[in-house]
């Protein structure tokens, strides 16, 4: 065998410290919002809800390298389940949320079982259809969803007598949920389960030759992703107190994809970083007035030129952390 010098990277240790930067950034943003409150707290709260959604999307699209344009459907199921059960039927927020997540995972199993036989562009088209169909249902099923009117009067999140009503209380609640979701993603990443997802992402043929049940791992990643989406949908309606079909429309798909790619697809910190950056950028450019969208667009392009694998990948020891 040829003697080639073993490739070592002497800068590994410093990189580990650098790996903390995305988390410090997120903590700083949340901390700032906590101190300032008001509008800043609202913007960051929405960003954290998106972070939950994108963390789930990343399990399916980043870890397992599949594609879904229809995860908004599962956010809609979670959101509407919470809205209808609490506002119209007087349920407590927590049982409504749990049932919403269960319903979304069940729906994902029903559509995922046939849809995940598709690959690449076809899977993208199939999942897009799931999102569009769910949108139509929320518009047309007026006896339950009240159509375009939407459902208002949704109570804030709480358990029993304890309710989260203040800006800061919501931030704390959402920060805890995001921390738990990100922690879960990190643990999945470094596990037998996560390695099997990476194998599916790397080469389905090689994975199946090693005895990995490729179809089952794809489905489980899809179900997990749907669960995260439903959790995000449910949190959203309780924070805002109102839901309409537009909330979970195509706009959500575009925004969450942007967050995933800007933050760093396949990384653990990426979804949180992406959700915060993409939510804050337009606010940062508010002073540009008419040119706000232009500046926002230019900033996104620059980010994707200089960090093509996302911001979090800049701080990861390898391409994926």
């Amino acid at each position: 065998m040829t003697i080639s010098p073993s490739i070592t990277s002497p800068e590994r240790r410093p990189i580990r410290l650098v790996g903390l930067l995305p988390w410090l950034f997120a903590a700083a943003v949340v901390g700032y919002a906590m101190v300032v409150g008001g509008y800043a707290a609202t913007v960051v709260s929405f960003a954290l809800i998106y972070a939950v959604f994108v963390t789930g999307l990343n399990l399916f699209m980043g870890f397992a390298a599949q594609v879904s344009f229809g995860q908004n459907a599962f956010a809609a199921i979670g959101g509407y389940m919470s809205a209808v059960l609490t506002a119209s039927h007087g349920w407590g927020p927590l049982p409504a949320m749990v049932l919403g997540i269960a319903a979304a995972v069940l729906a994902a199993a029903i559509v995922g079982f046939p849809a995940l036989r598709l690959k690449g562009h076809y899977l993208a088209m199939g999942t897009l259809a799931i999102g569009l169909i769910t949108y139509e249902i929320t518009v047309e099923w007026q006896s339950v969803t009240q159509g375009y009117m939407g459902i208002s009067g949704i109570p804030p999140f709480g358990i029993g007598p304890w309710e989260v009503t203040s800006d800061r209380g919501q931030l704390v609640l959402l920060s805890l949920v995001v921390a738990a979701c990100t922690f879960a993603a990190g643990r999945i990443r470094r596990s037998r389960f996560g390695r099997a997802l990476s194998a599916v992402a790397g080469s389905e043929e090689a994975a199946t030759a090693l005895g990995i049940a490729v179809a089952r791992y794809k489905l489980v990643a899809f179900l997990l992703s749907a669960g995260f989406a439903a959790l995000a949908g449910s949190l959203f309606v309780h924070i805002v107190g109102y839901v309409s079909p537009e909330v979970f429309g195509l706009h959500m798909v575009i925004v969450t994809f942007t967050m995933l790619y800007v933050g760093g697809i396949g990384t653990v910190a990426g979804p949180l970083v992406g959700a915060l950056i993409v939510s804050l950028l337009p606010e940062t450019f508010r002073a540009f007035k008419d040119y706000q969208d232009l500046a926002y667009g230019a900033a996104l392009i620059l980010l994707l030129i200089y960090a093509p694998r996302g911001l979090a990948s800049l701080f990861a020891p390898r391409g994926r952390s």
Partner: protein
Amino acid sequence: MNRLRLEGVTRRFGGLVAVDDVSFEVPADGVTAVIGPNGAGKTTLFNLISGFLPPSAGRITFEGNDITGRPPAEIARAGLVRTFQLVKLFEDLSVLDNVKVGCHLQGRAGLFAALFRPASARREEQALDARARDLLAFAGLAAMADEPAAALPYGRQRMLELARAMAAGPRLILLDEPAAGLNTEESAALSRIIRRIADEGTSVLLIEHDMTLVMNTAERVVVVDFGRKIAQGTPAEVRVDPAVIAAYLGTGKPAMQEPPHG
């Protein structure tokens, strides 16, 4: 008992018969090689055995169990694992993690274990880690455990693929042209590793163009041409078989040179 048995295995692609009524057996001990000119149907034969293609006719049994047309993951779980002619590594994973993916069948941990890491899952992970590092040492890759797989030079990627396949704990390993693209030294090292795999009790079935490797490594050779088995025997027997000589050269000259020893 035979590890693997093929009876009248046939695969047609439209009008083309890529594998035509092939029967042979792979004994449990040692190394068996399938050789043949380009386009003889060797890789198709491997795809049929490993479940990546269903045969049009015939029967394949592994350790006495019929595996004809079973899905590849199920065949791997039964203990028959293959490698690919074109290396298919998980390029974003580290060298060590590639082998740990190979250990997939040795573990049980699922989603619950990933999230809550009970003591049993931690022990399993430690065992997989130790096993993966042993295999890396076996393949001469221990120093590169934490490198991304894509950063390895080509010859080492081949070794990694072999180590990853061995991690699955196969009782029969199918190697599809493992020496393709290797230089003479690398090929000799590969030959020694294949011998060790066989000596430690895993049956080896390999497809190979590198005749030196085949002659030095295999006890038995099956020769295919135009999808048919045209000869079978020891390397020495096959080398002087007139049908084999005709298939390779179309003349009366010996098909293969005497291998250099050592």
